[in-house]
């Protein structure tokens, strides 16, 4: 009966009395505090009644009850874990219907008659344990079969690493990178959802910067010591090119052509000796048009003046009538 008056959330051990209010607010603090505690005791008794009537199991430390789910909904701390997007292999395996089967970590090696690891150090069927590779007819001359095998292995490992990174990038885009993996550690937070991968400087950009640094001396880097393997700067800072002035086979003529072209352009703009008939006609037309306009304006302004004076006269007359 009492319990119906309160809202009880047993999961949070909370009771709320929405009906209570102080009739006259007590004047002294002691009185107020006493009333609060009284009411509080009543509410907590309500929760305790519900709590102690739950089925309990005896334990060494005392009776233990199972609390129901909290009914007051409170927000989460972090987002729900998002499903990881499938890797390329997983997609492929699903398409082909390939099922993942567990394999034993230890395999019996028939050659030595012992148990060995499937992968890793001292593994079964290790290529490196084979000391002799028999020559085939297809073999190229001068190629070391051992180093070739080593290279191939390294390539496979590199490829796998590349694939792994690609898959991780996909996971990163989906926004649920495992907390223990960071991509390009400098700019990414441990958790949270920041989606900026820092851009790596391209080869050209690096070359530009290196060139600028190399020529940043008084002599333009002419007398600087070169590092072993350092190439000359690609962009020395010279961009204007001058063609040779002296007439030669091809280039000299080019220079002449270039200057002539510019000269012609200039001369054409300021040439007065030839009369441009079209231009003269339009100029004449514009002039006459302007004159006509001016005359019109003069006549308009005179008429508007008349109108104004008329108005004033009318007003004056209306006043007189009153």
């Amino acid at each position, binding site marked *: 009966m009492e319990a119906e008056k309160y809202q009880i959330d047993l*999961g*949070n*051990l*909370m*009771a*709320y*009395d*929405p009906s*209570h*209010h*102080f009739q006259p607010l007590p004047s002294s*603090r002691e009185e*107020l*505090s006493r009333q*609060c*505690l009284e*009411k*509080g*005791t009543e*509410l*907590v*008794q309500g929760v*305790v*009644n519900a*709590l*102690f*009537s739950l089925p309990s199991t005896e334990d060494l430390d*005392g*009776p*233990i*009850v*199972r*609390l129901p789910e909290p009914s007051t909904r*409170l*927000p*989460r*701390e*972090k*987002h*729900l*874990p998002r499903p990881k997007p499938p890797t390329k292999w997983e997609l492929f395996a699903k398409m082909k219907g390939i099922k993942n089967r567990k394999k*034993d*970590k*230890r395999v019996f090696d028939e050659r030595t008659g012992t*148990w060995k*690891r499937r992968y890793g150090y001292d593994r079964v069927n290790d290529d490196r344990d084979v000391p002799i590779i028999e020559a085939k007819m297809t073999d190229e001359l001068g190629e070391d079969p051992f180093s070739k095998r080593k290279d191939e292995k390294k390539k496979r490992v590199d490829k796998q690493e590349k694939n*792994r*990174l690609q898959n*991780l990038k996909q996971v990163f885009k989906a926004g649920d990178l*495992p*907390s*223990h*993996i*960071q*991509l*390009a*550690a400098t700019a990414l937070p*441990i*958790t*949270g959802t920041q989606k900026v991968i820092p851009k790596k400087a391209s080869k050209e950009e690096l070359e530009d910067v290196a060139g600028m640094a190399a020529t940043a001396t008084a002599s333009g880097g002419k007398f600087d010591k070169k590092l072993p393997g350092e190439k000359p700067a690609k962009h020395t800072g010279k961009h204007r090119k001058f063609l040779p002035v002296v007439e030669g086979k091809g280039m000299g003529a080019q220079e002449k052509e270039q200057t002539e072209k510019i000269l012609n352009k200039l001369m054409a703009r300021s040439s007065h000796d030839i009369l441009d008939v079209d231009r003269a006609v339009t100029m004449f037309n514009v002039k006459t048009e302007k004159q006509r306009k001016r005359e019109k304006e003069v006549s308009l302004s005179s008429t508007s003046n008349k109108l104004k004076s008329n108005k004033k006269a009318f007003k004056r007359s209306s006043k007189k009538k009153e």
Partner: protein
Amino acid sequence: MLKIKTPKTLKAKRALDKRAPKLVENAKKTLILHGTKTSYVLNAVLAQIFHLKKGLAVKFSRKNENIRPFESSGETSLEFFSLKTDCSFFVFGSHSKKRPNNLILGRMYDHHIYDLVEVGVENFTPIESFKYDKKIAPRQGSKPFFAFIGENFESVDELKHLKEVLLDHFRGEIVENLNLTGVDRVFVCTAISSTTVSFKHCAIRLKKSGTSIPRIELIEVGPSMDLVVRRHRLPNEAVKKQAMKAAPMQPRKIKNVSRDEVKGKIGKIYMPDQQVGGLALSNNIKGLKRERREGKTKDKRDDQDLSKKMRTEESH
């Protein structure tokens, strides 16, 4: 190519996994910090809130200049601290002429501010000024009860919000099983007026009543204070929707147990295949490990020395 960075030690990996988003979350931690100026009262309030929440709280003791949670760009360093300490509650105390004894209670979602309530502290009574039998003092980390009294908690928006925030801040860990002997504390919050809430911390004393349900008695153990609501900011609707998402609950499947009317409960037992994977190899056993190279050469030299000596002795 990008660099993949993984923790180098297992300890580091565990530490990172601990803070990752989970289906069933860890208990939320509280960050307690100061503004540029805090009064004597507020220092005590912050210290005692830290005391109440010990085990699930981090307290910073330095002054923080650029934390103003209600203003834009005033929350940057707060969010950074939250990320560093993995806290999703914060209690920020500051004291100014305009807002004396100011306490900002806030919650974070995904290390961004979720909501805020600003309260002024009045009539603060510290723990030390309450005299009571120390045997009944609440133990650290025990699950508290809550009693909210007053219609204003429902009718006034600010108080409704404050009620939720107070409940979230002080409820401690979410537990499934509760030991009934560990019931020892309660927070009594009373809405005195439409802006003021009296906040009291009491110990519970269980007394015999003759039935299985005990009669309880509340003894105030402090701290107690009046909280006057000033500003508050409700969560963004979109963020709220995200944060309120509950984990999909699936009842656990009970395997290999069936019931028979005659025989009763029947359990099946499977004998798993032999595990070859755990087989110890010769170099996993210390005694069978290959000899160290240094040891080998040293032994040989000793042998040679010995033989030399023998020879010299013979010659003598």
